[in-house]
């Protein structure tokens, strides 16, 4: 009642052949493992490209300024809510435009997050650009009450291939700036 393997190579099928086939199978397996663990290479940037990263956090201006409540308005409110001024919490959307050599590279419009649209925005945007000398211009509007940009920034930059330049923003120190990373 001996059992035969499903496919039988009969007497030809000696041990040596079996082990040779095993070595072949293991080699194939490891070749697949090795190959896809590093190949095919993945290209993030084309030859000679660099990256401008626009990344900052900023709380935009309020949509409406605080104002004094009129007597009539106050009377309409329950007594415990009668504050002399009204300050709506909603913030303006932020519009950022980034130009490189007068060419608009990106225009981002971000609404203030939060249930009451009262929180600051986080911007993170990467733009692939050719390496070399460029005129960088960034402008932002963060106040619906103002027509046109509330912040502007211009700088001549030189980018090496694969270099990343970080365009950051800080309202307290005047707006946009190039963030030079601390050297390791």
């Amino acid at each position, binding site marked *: *009642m001996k*059992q*035969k*393997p*499903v*496919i039988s*190579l009969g007497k030809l*099928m000696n041990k040596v052949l*079996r082990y040779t*086939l*095993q070595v*072949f*199978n*293991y*080699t194939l*397996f*490891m070749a*697949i*493992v*090795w190959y*896809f*663990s*590093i*190949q095919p*290479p*993945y*290209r*993030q*940037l*084309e*030859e000679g*490209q*660099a*990256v401008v*990263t626009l*990344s*900052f*956090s900023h709380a935009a201006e309020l949509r409406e300024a605080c104002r004094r409540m009129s007597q009539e308005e106050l009377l309409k409110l329950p007594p415990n809510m009668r504050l002399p001024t009204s300050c709506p919490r909603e913030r303006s959307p932020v519009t950022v435009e980034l130009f490189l050599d007068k060419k608009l590279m990106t225009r981002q419009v971000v609404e203030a*997050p*939060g249930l009451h649209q009262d*929180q600051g925005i*986080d*911007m*993170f945007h*990467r733009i692939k650009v050719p390496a070399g000398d460029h005129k960088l211009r960034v402008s932002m509007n963060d106040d619906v009450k103002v027509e046109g940009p509330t912040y502007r920034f211009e700088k001549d930059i030189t980018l090496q*291939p*694969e*270099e*990343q330049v*970080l365009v*950051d923003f800080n309202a307290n120190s005047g707006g946009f700036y190039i*963030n030079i*990373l*601390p050297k*390791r």
Partner: protein
Amino acid sequence: MSYINPIKRVYLAIEAWFNLSFGSAWNPLYNLGTLAFFFFWVVLISGLYLFIFFDTSLSGAYASVEYMTHDQWYAAGVMRSLHRYASDAAIVTIMLHMFREFALDRYRGFRWFSWFTGVPTLWMVITLGITGYWLVWDELGLYVAMLSSQLVDALPFMNSAMARNFVGGQLTDRFFTLMAFLHLLGQPLFLVFAIWIHVKRLSFVEITAPIGLSMGSFIALLALSLAAPAVSHGPADMEKVTAVLNLDWFYLAVYPLLDYFTAGQTWMITLGITFFMMIMPWLPPKKTGHAAEVHLDHCNGCEQCADDCPFDAISVQARTDGARYENEVVVHPNLCAACGICVGSCPSSNPFRQKNEQLETGIDMPQFPINDIRERINKAVSELLGDTRIIVIGCDNALDFAGLESSDIKVLSLYCIGMMPPTIVEYALQKGVDGVLITGCRTGDCYYRYGNKWMDQRFDGSRRPILRGRADRDRIKVFRAAETDCKNLRSEVADFRKQLQKLNEAETSNQPGQAHE
């Protein structure tokens, strides 16, 4: 031969190829789950060694990995390569495991749970690999960190830009320590838990691969580690975006999607595929047969069926019917796969009992009771003609052998070959057939996991109920065949005919004038 879908054909061909070189005991395709475990062991042990030299700080991580790779290439370097390649091999193995269950249609019906829980388990393995690449803190680690952050930032409940951490230079050790914690402890613990859930509905879960297969795989991994040691990219540099990276596609294939889609869309795509995979068992659903039923008046509480059930669907409890036995068994219909293996386990499934009445057993399949099986044998015996009268007994999930029927061959297909009580074979021979040919799923593989193995053990006397010595083994042949092995089965039948002819001739010459009975 009935229609076999091309995916199954491809799978069965690969399986046959491996049977040729590894034999069924070492066939990697029959050991994919255990092989994945084996690779996890290699990952664990090499990982523990790496941990001794790894500096879990942002500033020290890269240098410590460089030290291991180059200064200590003969030990830590090899360990690093083993760690990487075993992780990759685990993914290949898991993918094959998935492909196998899919190709053989073993993912629907009662198997939905294993499939459904397998999908998130695979994600856990992948994310474990992702944090691993992060920890090297080379250019690839930075890429992984950067793009993972973009993905995290796109989640609706995240309102701070994590990605900003990886350009602004204000990255602190705390974040990195969190990753180290996740990779070294958090994720592995979750993974172990997930795998435990994954195999929870099964019994006799094998987690150790056969020694020959483990050794072969280890030697292969070691050879690869020496031939092509794993190395890092340049150190992470936040002022730089590396143009070309050598991605590990087994783990990091999701990230390049971000070149074509927004982070939100990438989430939708991956979640969509994951969700689709998880509901596959219902596309379309597969009906599981009627669960086994216990007949207490024929059950003596021997527990053999509970021991044999591959799906943990039978438990033992104290006797409820006042009979003198201590225990009885209970079937849990929601776990029962309707394989009928319990019928083959039950000592009461003996066709020599209750000769002139309905045959009843302790545990039976309501849609194909043991009495029907005996009737089918009786009918076959009465219809068979010629001097090599053969009954072929097989199962519904392997080669469709109905085409073998002829004047001297009758076929009997059971739910699973494990459903066959050994006494059935003895009974057929005693009733006067010349031979019993047993087929069913390929050795090493069984649609219901353990049908083949239990049958073999019953036949060799190591599992009850056993095939008794008085059954003439020369008149029993086992040849297992998958759906594509049609030709092989036919030639085996022809050989068996010849063998039986010879036996008959020998017997008639020994006992002149007496027919074989």
